């Protein structure tokens, strides 16, 4: 692999960049792999990467029905934070956030991790209490967050109206090392690194069946033929129930649409990420200058990647309440993705009833920020059968009545 650097760019410029090689190799599938990951989104590619990097397992294929990074990895609002309340969540999201800190250097690919800071706004007394609780928990979990008052909120984000009229800002939970990253680059960077380790990333390869023998997984059937494997990871947000069905089990998941939108680009005016859960909206400004806006999910099962417009209305209305200036911006584009929502809205990283088959799903509306931590833990689970990062996220928790509920701190968990 040719390393990327400013010098490399200067060198290639001489020849109008005709010397760059492919970012990831294009290969036909082999007959058999030690491990197969279904789904070349961020989570799937990160899982493959850490299988190789941390556990020396490089005879790996990542199978992708469409194009890599084309699911929710490429259609989210790119927020990264780890200020979660419950221990298992804080652990995996903080692991992810800390890996993001050096991901560009680790992958030799600029994923543009920008720790610009994230404010979770408190606009009711209930939220104030919820975030103060989170601040206490975070301090003990090794997550650096801080409760800040309304004046500091205003100082960090001057375009905000903190005075209401309906929901004055009462303060916020501030995570200075939260931020954003370039979503596509995360997938591309992992893909390039996986390919460099000799792994096969096979796009346009749809899995149509899972084969097993004596309760143990033996491989998959695909649009490019049968492929054998010793262990199988299913990492297919938006289609988890569908693929799980092929492997012979069902999940505590409903798939619903989550929508987002961007404004036209404007000059820099917002240096932090703000989430306002009382009114259900969140916003940041991309490096291109677009205001990137998200809200809540639709409430019905949906696989169309289109949502209902009234949710866009509600989100925009809510954000104008707190950011009056955006009223005079224009919406450039709106889109939707399909998210898998579990019974407790926390993810599942788990063994399954089929031996050798593991599943990583249910990230709901908050998966992008977790990608490195999720891959790190899931790879360990696949390689060793156990990971402290994923231990609490087993799918048996729904039977046991043991839930990881993040909505307790405040509203929705994005």
């Amino acid at each position, binding site marked *: 692999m040719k390393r*990327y650097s400013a010098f*490399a*760019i200067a060198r290639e410029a001489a020849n*109008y960049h005709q010397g760059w090689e*492919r970012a*990831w190799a294009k290969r036909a599938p082999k007959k058999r792999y030690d491990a197969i990951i279904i789904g070349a989104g961020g989570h799937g590619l990160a899982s493959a990467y850490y299988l190789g990097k941390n556990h020396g397992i490089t005879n790996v294929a990542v199978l992708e029905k469409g*194009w890599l990074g084309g699911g929710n990895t*490429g259609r989210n609002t790119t927020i990264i934070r780890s200020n979660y309340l419950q221990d*298992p969540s*804080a*652990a995996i999201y903080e692991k992810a956030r800390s890996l993001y800190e050096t991901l560009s*250097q680790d992958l*030799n*690919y*600029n994923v*543009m991790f920008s*720790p610009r800071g994230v404010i979770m706004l408190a606009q*009711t*007394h209930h939220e104030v209490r919820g975030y*103060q*609780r989170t601040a*206490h*928990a975070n301090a*003990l*979990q*090794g997550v650096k967050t801080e409760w800040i008052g309304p004046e500091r909120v205003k100082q960090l984000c001057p375009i905000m109206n903190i005075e209401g009229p309906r929901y004055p800002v009462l303060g916020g939970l501030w995570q200075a090392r939260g931020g954003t990253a370039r979503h*596509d680059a995360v997938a591309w*960077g992992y893909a390039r690194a996986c390919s460099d380790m000799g792994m096969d990333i096979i796009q346009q390869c749809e899995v149509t069946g899972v084969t097993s023998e004596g309760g143990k997984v033996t491989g998959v059937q695909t649009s490019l033929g049968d492929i054998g494997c010793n262990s199988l990871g299913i990492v297919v947000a938006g289609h988890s129930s569908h693929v799980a069905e092929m492997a012979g089990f069902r999940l505590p998941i409903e798939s619903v649409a989550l929508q987002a939108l961007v*404004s*036209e*680009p*404007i*000059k*820099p*005016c917002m240096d932090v990420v703000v989430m306002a859960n009382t009114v259900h909206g969140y916003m940041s*400004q991309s*490096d*291109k*200058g677009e205001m990137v806006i998200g809200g809540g999910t639709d409430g019905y099962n949906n696989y169309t990647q*289109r949502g*209902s*417009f009234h949710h*866009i*209305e509600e989100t925009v*209305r809510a954000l*104008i*309440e707190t950011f*009056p*200036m*955006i*009223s*005079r911006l*224009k*919406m*450039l584009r709106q889109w939707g993705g399909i998210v898998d929502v579990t019974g407790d809205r926390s993810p599942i990283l788990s063994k399954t009833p089929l031996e050798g088959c593991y599943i990583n799903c249910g990230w709901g509306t908050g998966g992008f920020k977790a990608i490195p931590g999720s891959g790190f833990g899931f790879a360990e689970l696949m390689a060793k059968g156990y990971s402290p990062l994923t231990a609490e996220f087993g799918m048996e*928790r729904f039977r*046991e*009545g*043991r839930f990881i*509920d993040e909505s307790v701190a405040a509203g929705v968990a994005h």
Partner: protein
Amino acid sequence: MSFRLPSGGRLIDRTSELKFTFNGRIMRGFAGDTLASALLARDQMLMGRSFKYHRPRGVVASGAEEPNALMNIGEGGRFEPNQRATTAELFDGMAARSQNHWPSLEFDVGAINAKFARFLPAGFYYKTFLYPRHFWKYVFEPIIRQSAGLGAAPKEADADTYEHFYAFCDVLVVGGGIAGLMAARDAAADGKRVIVLEQNGHWGGRAPVDGAVVEGKPADEWVSVTLQALEANDNVTLRDRCMGAGVYDHGYVLGYERITDHAPANDVPRHRLWRIRAGHVVTATGALERPLSFAGNDLPGVMLASAVRDYVVNHAVAPGKRTVVVTNNDDAYRTAEVMVNAGLSVPAIIDARPSVDEALISKFSDLGVEVKVASAIAKVKGKDRVTGVAICAQDSNGSVSTTIECDAVAMSGGWSPVVHLWSHCGGKLTWDEDQAMFRPDPNRPPTNQTGEGFVSVVGWANGEIDQGDIAPVWIMPQGASIETRNKMWLDFQNDVKVSDVQLAAQEGFESVEHAKRYTTLGMATDQGKLSNINGLAVLADALDTGIPQVGTTTFRPPYTPISMGAIAGEARGEIFQPLRRTPMHAWHEKNGAHWEPVGHWRRPYCFQQPGESVEDAVNREITNTRTSLGLLDASTLGKIVVKGPDAGKFLDMLYTNMMSNLKPGKCRYGLMCSENGFLMDDGVVARIDEDTWLCHTTTGGADRIHAWMEDWLQCEWWDWKVWTLNLTEQFAQVAVVGPNARTMLETLGGMDLSAQALPFMGWADGKIGDFNVRVYRISFSGELSYEISVPASEGLAFWEALMEAGEPFGITPYGTEALHVMRAEKGFIMIGDETDGTVIPQDLGLNWALSKKKEDFLGNRAHSRSHMADPTRWKLVGLETVDGSVLPDGAYAVADGHNENGQRNMIGRVTSTYYSPTLDRGIAMGLVLHGPDRMGEVLAFPRVDGTVAYARIVSPVFYDPEGEKQNV
């Protein structure tokens, strides 16, 4: 140079001169001008700077697809960035500024990027800025952000208003050109209710510009006659300046109407969002002309051929004196003809096609225009604007045969139907090889709720384009070198060139989505209207595959950007959400209420007296109530009547404890769990008569619990005879609380309120003074307490009567915080404080409320799962700080050591914590591992500042543990 022609201009009114400013300079235009045409008329060819290289840019189009001429328009609360000069209709006093440059449009420091363009190919930023690590956030990113972005950020709150309209029709026609008006006429003739949307301020589309003849009449005349007929039909609604913005599922369409953008006014909304349900949608959205990719095609003065024609015909503005036309189809010849007829010079038509109809060639030769067949532009000459073109053969590698001096270039790469609205909701496209365009595939339309196609397409939008035999020409010349391909722009705004797309393909970004995201092709504010087809043709060529195999990116709403203000509509400021008020709301407001939002209600947190802090007010309210008399507006508590022969059975399922055996005239506190076992609400239930119960819920719970009841009654136990009614807003409820409560109420006269007549946990109907009341003897404070409900209409009068009668007792109204502190002093749990959706009754020592007699109730089965029966669940206790201070809210108790993930081991947490004025110390409740077995133990609660609070485990009942005060 560009200039105004002495005559002509079908849209302008030369008698009405308008004054406007551009970058502070005063200029004049005519009514009917767009900002772009007015600027061109003043030879202001330079209108903007590109996004990445800050290259000088002029206007390239004449409509919504314009990528270059974006302006900051307006001032203060009426400022808006990124407005297309091509669609901004000029008005008197318009203040426009160009964007994305510093210090000025003419001299832009950012243009240095262009000098380094060779080092800034597609995706260069993924390959660099890696070291030192912290430089991304602190050095590189700020520079990139500053250089990126387009218009300035609005600073002030919006001075305009917006509104939403709802509309329904059988047929919605989007596009008021000839095809659209014909479709509307046909639908109206069938008796259909029709709505027609036209994005411009004038009807007829391109046809009048192109001199078309429709049904024997000149287009302008046909349009006016047809419009008159449609206007006369009551079934037809016509809206101009109203764009079909998006098509959504089940026939939902957004219309975006710009009401005052062309004529600012204070008394009407600026934009109107139409939310239309259409039985059928006809898109007559026309087509967009494609640029051609040749070196230097982004220089100011290079424009779409159709745009050049528009400016000449519509606004009598000539982009240049000598205009070279370059094309791969017949349509651009119209531009040449228009120019010649206007007395302008067209030295040549450069036609890339290997052969051209002889008749066409001779026609133009008669007009004095040389047609150069099989030719191409090798390069546009000029630095900041066009000075000439170098010509070569299209099938060459670019060796120049001749050069032609000119000051404008009109280019046409053929036409692409506007398929956006067709595609928004899943309509599929098919590649038309002959016409080199994607057109709607009639066999794969978007489908509606009945599974049928609900969009059809007419006219140019359907590919019925009059452009002769087009030759697909995607780069010019065919064999251009890499050096030349590096100067061919595909996406003008984002500075994406042919070489960039080829680089993406070379690096494995083969999917059209990858190529788009890697190069940013089509991600500019025009969303690829000009660049997408050219870009994906280049990609297909680089991948050695066909254009249909590459496919398009996804078309997403809106068609062109629409204002956030219009999306939000009227609901802003005070009416952003509905505000629920109790009957006493106005009184509270007048009497110092410090408000707290609770759901859509506002409740007084406390009543501040002049000079008093919030804390002082709360403490005063508590002390006053505990020692004499307090009054609480409890109207927001849910009041749900449950009635019917099976009501008792139903409530036994809903509540964890028994309600069926409650005697009429009595009250009982009850808990509700979700089917998943978690506590979801609590409240006092009163049995009214044999088959009627009244259930009180929490303030936030009223609507939710009522819906919950209906869910079970309608969907599970539908054969049970039970009816529910949410009476929350029909009754005001006042809690009269304190040792003087009874004495004070007795001064009003009326019913017997003695302990014998109305014992604790009893209720009775009767009269107090002149008021018909229902009185519940229940207490959430631990004091003698009467909760009294009256019809909502009498709530305020009753409240005022109580305040007056209470005056001799020093009565005080109290708010939610005093309520909370008093309940905590008594050790009563609060839904939302002690519970958070993860707490079960057993955690709170409420096992007594879990009926053992009942076989089933909601949540019962859930409680027997292993984790819920786990003895290590944290349990409710009281907490008393060792030093009397107040425990921090939300603090956690820690044990030694860390867990596997390096987090401190936690063994409990604070759920409620207050200063108790009654006890003059901090009191708290919390959930603690084995808590009830550890009475007296001291736990450590680290504060966020690193210090530690120590608290002793005690009983949660801090005040009057025997209950002597409430039961008198």
